[in-house]
């Protein structure tokens, strides 16, 4: 009955913060950017050992049940420390399988996800069917109609780290595929992210209307955890900038004593502080909607389809607010560090670049604002 993290949840966040703070995540990111995924994989395993991936997996598959609030706690820390790799996509894939409830693919993939053995990328064509050559089919929303796709292309969305993941789940039309391959790997503005369009051939893991219902849920999970990551990244950008402007002197005083600097950072904090309850509100809504393993909350006055729309609204609101707050923090961090912030000498650049990418990943601000008002996925 209380909108506060409990002691256990807070301690979980602190544990992750300590572990990640001791690891050289910036080094892992720089390695990941040149396809050396070794250091990143080690971090991944430690996250699994601390139970992060199990949070999306039912108990019968080595998980701890679906716990969106704990996932949000974890992903704030992943964002704060800039962990590379398809963390969001792997959890979304697990959420998809769990919601699908189909025993065969669940048994095959979920235990490995829970224990850290599987890195899964994930792409969703939002109801569009795509030919095996990657060209769009005709029953979709057409050119530019899906997020994650090239606005001019219609060749389907990019999948994050498809070339280094163990598999890429693709939802195309009403089929769930394990993709056989992918197109050329494209660098992102965020060096920790490498993008490729998955091939639309591959093993069919499931098909039918249940796939689309489950993928709809998975997209909400992905958006909500991207919001949590963005919140963590924004917190880090703000914290590092506060530290810097306290030390850096110009005109004989700390830069942080200039009112223009102090007010810009105050505004960055306001945006982050008000994004945070939306991020956790979305997690509570997801927990309530799924009504399953981890139910610790419920939504007021929303039932059935109305409830699903309400969840989608909460998630979209969190995504807009956290994405914009993090990007605003990135802009402030860059400006207030001055030239040194514009270099790759500081790890700061990794978060600045990530904040831009997370702003659009799994729902652009424009798409999410539309969802806030309609409660609908504009792509279905």
């Amino acid at each position, binding site marked *: 009955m209380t909108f506060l993290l409990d002691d256990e949840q807070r301690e979980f966040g602190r544990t992750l913060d300590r572990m990640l703070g001791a690891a050289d995540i910036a080094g892992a990111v720089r390695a990941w950017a040149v396809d050396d995924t070794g250091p990143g994989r080690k971090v991944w395993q430690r996250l699994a050992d601390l139970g992060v991936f199990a949070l999306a997996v039912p108990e019968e598959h080595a998980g701890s049940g679906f716990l969106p609030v704990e996932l949000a706690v974890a992903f704030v820390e992943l964002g704060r420390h800039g962990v590379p790799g398809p963390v969001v996509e792997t959890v979304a894939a697990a959420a998809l399988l769990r919601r699908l409830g189909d025993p065969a693919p669940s048994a095959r993939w979920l235990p490995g996800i829970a224990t850290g053995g599987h890195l899964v990328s994930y792409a969703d064509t939002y109801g569009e069917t795509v030919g095996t050559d990657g060209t769009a089919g005709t029953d979709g929303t057409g050119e530019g109609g899906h997020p994650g796709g090239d606005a001019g292309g219609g060749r389907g969305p990019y999948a994050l780290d498809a070339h280094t993941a163990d598999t890429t789940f693709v939802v195309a039309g009403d089929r769930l595929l394990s993709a056989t391959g992918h197109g050329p790997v494209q660098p992102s503005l965020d060096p920790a992210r490498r993008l490729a369009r998955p091939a639309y051939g591959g093993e069919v893991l499931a098909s039918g209307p249940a796939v689309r219902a489950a993928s709809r849920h998975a997209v909400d999970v992905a958006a909500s955890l991207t919001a949590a990551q963005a919140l963590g990244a924004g917190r880090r950008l703000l914290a590092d900038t*506060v530290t810097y402007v306290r030390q850096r002197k110009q005109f004989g005083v700390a830069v*942080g004593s200039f009112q223009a600097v*102090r007010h810009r950072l105050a505004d960055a904090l306001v945006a982050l502080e008000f994004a945070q*309850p939306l991020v956790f509100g979305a997690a509570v809504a997801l927990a309530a909607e799924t009504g399953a393993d981890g139910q610790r909350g419920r939504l007021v006055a929303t039932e059935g389809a109305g409830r699903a729309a309400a969840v989608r609204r909460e998630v979209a609101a969190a995504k807009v607010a956290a994405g914009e707050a993090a990007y605003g923090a990135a802009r402030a961090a860059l400006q207030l560090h001055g030239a040194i912030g514009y270099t790759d000498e500081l790890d700061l650049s990794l978060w600045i670049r990530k904040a831009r990418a997370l702003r659009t990943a799994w729902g652009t601000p424009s798409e999410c604002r539309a969802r806030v008002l309609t409660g609908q996925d504009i792509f279905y």
Partner: protein
Amino acid sequence: MDLGHAPQDEEFRYAARSWLAARVPGTPLPSLETAEGFAAHREWERTLAADRWSVVSWPEEYGGRGASLARWLIFEEEYYAAQAPGRVSQNGISLLAPTLFAHGSPAQLARVLPPMASGEVIWAQAWSEPEAGSDLAALRSTAVRTAGGWLLSGQKTWSSRAAFADRAFGLFRSHPDADRPHRGLTYLMFDLAAPGVTVRPIGRLDGKPAFAELFLDEVFVPDEDVIGEPGQGWRVAMSTAGNERGLTLRSPGRFTASADRLVALWRQRADPADTALRDRVADAVIGARAYHLFARAGAARLATGDDLGAESSLNKIFWSELDIALHETALDLLGAAGELADSADEAPDHGSWAAGWTFALAGPIYAGTNEIQRDIIAERLLGLPKGRR
């Protein structure tokens, strides 16, 4: 972590909703910045109080229901969703009462609170002076010791509601030799009809007398109307800023109701394909939701005994900017009709959008300008050096 409410709290919600549905006037009361409107709003306070809805969070002995902060939030949601009248008692309820609960004597509580709850006594605040706005510690008005009380002299300004209110509260310099400017102040309550008080109404932006200047010339105040210790007024006034008052100055229900009304206006009048407007409407919805959830988290923390401290400064900036953005969006949505004053017969929704815009414009200025709030955030929440501002 949970956003649900206990079944008893939901019962409370339905009780409030039912009562409001039966009692809220069908057409808005006249503006409370007019004599006629002030009287009508005072009467509305009496109606609220008659069924113990005027001060739900107060103890029953003073006219309240002993409601938790969570229930207060629920009440406010219902209140604004019902488009119930603005609260002419707001100054007393949200500024003076928390201070009395923290520092008042039992006798003061018993004497002051019930007529405040009933609207019998409407309070004005008397903080600012011509030379002491953001720099509140520069107050010059004096309280001079006299037999059985104090004599107040000086000038107060931006005294909201004072054009029509009954009594006022504020800080006065009682110990001019104190070593620092914010020491040596005393927190006093006084009668606006007392000998020596001259009230000069001041028109706000739209000309309505929303506040007044007070000229005080040896106005006698008995000792019983001092709150806390003489000379400790600054501490008394500030001590409640970081607790519930930071949360309750502007209730989330006000903004969620406004955002809901904006969405309705948008559905009714806007082109749904106009994404520029759509995005701004969505931002208002997101902002109101964020403010609601932030308050829920704050209420939960207060319930555990935490103090919110300088977080009320975050709150102040957020709601004041949200309020302006929301009303600017509404005016833009209305096109040429958005230019109409709230008093125009043809102004949409009884002029509530224009009135709301005018009201919102004051938000970043009063209760500590947003510039002062950003300074507080920088220093107390971010740990940045104090700077000269």
